[in-house]
């Protein structure tokens, strides 16, 4: 079994003398979700467009599963679903027809095509608009259809460029859930986003880009701990059930825990002091409390700090 992979080798795109992306080297391999961060104009979309054959590199190569996208786009993208920026769909086609077209192009067999399309439509919660002409959809609805088009063939690799752009707050939350669901299915997802909360929640690794250059690429925890302020660190814990006040009190009394904030009944932000050891100890204690701990990760504000520092340094 070959692991899914996305690779950029010295990938460069210049418009006249201005380089939107300069010499990007990045290799993503295996089933995971990688967040792609960077300020407006950093070159994220430019990189993703070269990975999907939408624009030609000035220099360097874009490879999907080891196949050069420039040389053999059809083979390279055969296992890849992508959503780049905010595509428009042929206005006179209905939602269902547009997705049937994509499914047919991508080789979903005719016997299961309709089911696959229905499933994709259900996944983005567009059942109500199934026969609506795409020209009549709102921006957010279109983006949902676009997301459905990217996932309709159940691809192993997904390239998503700000998938929740144009969506209302609930839509954003829904897309976050959809992408989270996509992750379970053993695939490699590369997703650009400005929503650090979304990235912390979904992604395992993060690549940060600015001015067309890669500033960092690492596991989320390592990236945030390497740049943690002193010995203090913010983490986020998720629980399978609501936390009672007793449980909160117990957690607060754990050594090294200097602050607590219950953001949702099942989500807790902790401030920890004492570096990795403190974190290790606290985590073991919380898990031992039997209050339903299911996840523990650096909080999004930790990522935000890291991000801001890296981006500021690069200016």
């Amino acid at each position, binding site marked *: 079994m070959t692991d899914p992979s996305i690779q950029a080798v010295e990938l460069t795109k210049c418009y006249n003398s201005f380089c939107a992306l300069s010499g990007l080297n990045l290799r993503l391999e295996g089933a995971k979700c990688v967040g792609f961060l960077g300020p407006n104009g950093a070159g994220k979309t430019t990189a993703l467009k070269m990975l*999907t054959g939408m624009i030609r590199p000035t220099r360097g190569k874009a490879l999907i599963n080891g196949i050069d996208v420039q040389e053999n786009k059809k083979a390279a993208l*055969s296992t890849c679903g992508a959503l780049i920026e905010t595509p*428009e*769909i042929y206005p006179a086609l209905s939602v269902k027809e547009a997705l049937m077209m994509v499914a047919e192009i991508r080789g979903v067999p005719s016997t299961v095509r309709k089911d696959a399309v229905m499933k994709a439509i259900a996944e983005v919660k567009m059942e109500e608009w199934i026969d609506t002409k795409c020209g009549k959809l709102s921006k957010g609805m279109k983006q949902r259809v676009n997301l459905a088009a990217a996932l309709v063939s159940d691809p192993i690799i997904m390239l998503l460029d700000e998938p929740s752009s144009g969506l209302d707050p609930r839509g954003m939350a829904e897309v976050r859930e959809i992408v989270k669901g996509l992750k379970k299915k053993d695939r490699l997802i590369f997703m650009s986003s400005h929503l650090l909360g979304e990235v912390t929640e979904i992604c395992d690794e993060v690549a940060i880009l600015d001015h067309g250059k890669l500033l960092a690429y690492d596991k989320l925890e390592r990236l945030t701990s390497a740049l943690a302020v002193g010995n203090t660190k913010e983490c986020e814990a998720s629980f399978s059930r609501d936390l009672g006040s007793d449980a909160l009190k117990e957690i607060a009394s754990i050594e090294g825990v200097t602050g607590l904030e219950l953001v949702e009944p099942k989500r807790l932000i902790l401030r920890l002091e004492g570096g990795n050891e403190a974190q290790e100890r606290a985590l073991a204690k919380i898990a031992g409390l039997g209050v339903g701990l299911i996840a523990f990760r650096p909080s999004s504000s930790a990522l935000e700090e890291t991000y801001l520092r890296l981006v500021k340094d690069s200016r």
Partner: protein
Amino acid sequence: MGGPGERTRGADATGRSIPGSASQLKTIAKYELMNYIRTRRFYVLLTITLIMSGLLTAVVALYQPAGFLSSPLGFYSSWWGMAATYILILSGIFFGGDAISGEFQNKTGYFLVVNPVKRSTIYAGKWVAAFIASLAIFSAFVAVTVANGAYYFGLDVPYQFGLSLAFSVLYLMSILGVTFFFSAIFKSASISILVTAILFLFAFSLTQTLVSNLAQMEPWFLITYGAEVIGNVLKDPYPTHIVTVQLGRVTFTTYNAPILNGVAIMAAYFVICAALGLVIFERRDFS
């Protein structure tokens, strides 16, 4: 061999593979056509065609012009000469004028092009769809023409009309070749439509007049000159290639493309423009 969960390259999670380009072309043409024939454009063009046909029918029925009713060939020649090439040109502009530029400007290309499909397949699929949509419009005109012909002369359709039809289809192909080429060049959909409209409705015929009358040169490089075989083949006898008329001290020369030259000119426009347009589309950035 692998166990469960084994995947091969070129196949997705369920192990299926991507269809061949011919089958993808068919898919794209099918949905593109579906989109075309539901747009306002299609109905506007159909209405224009039906109005032209209706007017012709009414005028011929009311005034019974001798040119139309003296012989079957005369009938088809006069009727055809009134509108056929205009309908072909309008269809070409309507369906081809922004076929490619629209994909860039309206961002519909972003939806299609990220799929595992060659750009040449998209280009050809769109071309086929535009061709079929234009043929549908043209068929309406042909149907009314033949119905009128049958009414006045029975089903005795002269063989020249069959030839003229074949040349019309070739002309349509070459027009779409040219309009696709221009739509691949320009970023703006409306500009590419405008340029092709100006070319076919004025520029080509103006150049032809200038070249043949003033420069006294055969306009062999003009698509509209080649397309004259569509009307000429309905004339009996077929017009001579070079006609010179002496008026006092001045000689006027008219050129009539022989059938083979006309066919060659149209075919060359189709092949060259379609190929150039494809090369440009393959290289253009979606940005």
